[in-house]
């Protein structure tokens, strides 16, 4: 409990590149913190891409009145 996973060089590179591409300029310390948070996010992204959602078409998700059924 409470241990912080190490920031990998790969995650640091990805985070720095994506922040730069978006025009953001955090401090070095903040980039490292974001890279730290990116580790769990990568695992979460892997989880949702592995989810068995079949052939679901999400394009009607927010069409009014079509929630649920």
């Amino acid at each position: 409990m409470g241990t912080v996973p190490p920031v990998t060089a790969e995650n640091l590179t990805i985070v720095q590149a994506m922040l730069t591409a978006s025009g953001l300029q955090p401090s070095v310390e903040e980039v490292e913190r974001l890279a730290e948070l990116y580790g769990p996010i990568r695992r979460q992204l892997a989880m949702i891409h592995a989810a068995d959602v079949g052939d679901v078409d999400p394009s009607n998700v927010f069409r009014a009145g079509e929630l649920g059924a």
Partner: protein
Amino acid sequence: MSTPWTIAAAAAALRSGETTSEALVSSMLTAADTLDPTLGVYLARFDEQALEAARRADAELAAGHDRGPLHGIPVGVKDILATDEGPTTCQSLVLPPSWGDQGDGPVLQRLRAAGAVILGKLTTMEFAVGRPDRSKPFPLPRNPWNPERWTGGSSSGSGNGVAAGLMLGALGTDTGGSIRVPSAYCGITGLKPTHGLVPKSGCFPLGYTYDHLGPMCRSAWDCAAMLTVMAGADPTDRTSVPSAPIDYVAAIEANGGSLAGVRIGVLVNDSIRDHTAAWTWQAMRDALEVLRAAGAETVEVEAPLYDELHVATFLGLQAEAFSYHRNWLATRWEDYGRPTRLTLALGALISGGDLAQCERVRQAGREQIHAMMEREQLTVLVSPTMGYGATHHSGAPRQTISARAMHCPVWNGTGFPALALPMGLDPDGLPLSLQIIARPFEDATALTVGHAYQQRTDWHLAKAPLHA
């Protein structure tokens, strides 16, 4: 008489002549003078306008013009909603003051037309995201049950304002739990309605497809009274859904408090149980006993795709929030509080393909949970709202501040209505909360079950130590 502290009681007292709207508003403003420096409820107060509106409400009632249960009722508004009276800050130095010039959106207009008296604008977290932030010149919301504990967010002032008796109802917004978390932590009742039931216009966006406006009050009855006024499509919000008006108060009173025929699915997914304190789970078991005594049947079920929905909701709303804030983040990074800018910047790390997959998970989850409720003939689902009571402002145990201890976000991702209501106290004397989830557009069903529970218990009437 003492100041009523439910809308139902105040509405009765106003009509019996035991009090007036002006007296209600005056007493609550006076109480705020004393308590607000500790609790951090208000960002702006509209004392003069509120007293004037209260006097108008009294004159109308005296003349026989009764606008309904909200007539003359003092209400607060989270400061990410524009209002006619004054500025909207979103508790941020970044938002241009001109954003609030649009004035009342449809929900504010409807509340005023129903006679509600707007007391002021209430604290939140910057742009309804991030964590409590001491680095910026805004009040730090504190919990009336223990000011060393947080109110929860992001409808923080709506939660502690109602809990402290400084108003009878409040408008909150909920993108990942922001109505239900402060309702849980502060020991009040809050409803995240079905997505599309209440128009969002006039509310600063966080996650466009996850945002909901909803009522925060003492009781399910009070929430029903507010929702009756708030619900209904408006052309300024294309996602709002046209539907016949519903009198939610009449709906929840229709069965006389009986839950005969109601079948409740108790969510027992590992990720809920693993992130819930033993005393919270016991409080829910006790609540289920009450519901069974009212005639309900309960059965344990696991929601399909629950963990994936939890994750997809957080990732998706971060991406949507980033789309709004990107240009400001690029030019005004330092003007944001640190927790806010780091949270928003995470949205830059989610690709277009990732976001599309979040949407696929949401749609699949919505269909599969709906199918499960059909198959198991479930009227509602229940879970704890939060795994733990209110967290410390700093130094909180890690498990209590984990996002996984929030059992709310899945219902933003799916759009299902979810009601949070008090069900007990933890060993530190802090409120615990039950969440009741209904099928889309069956908000009245969640309120009915909550109302039946509150007819048999008085947790919703428990007074916090710091109370007017």
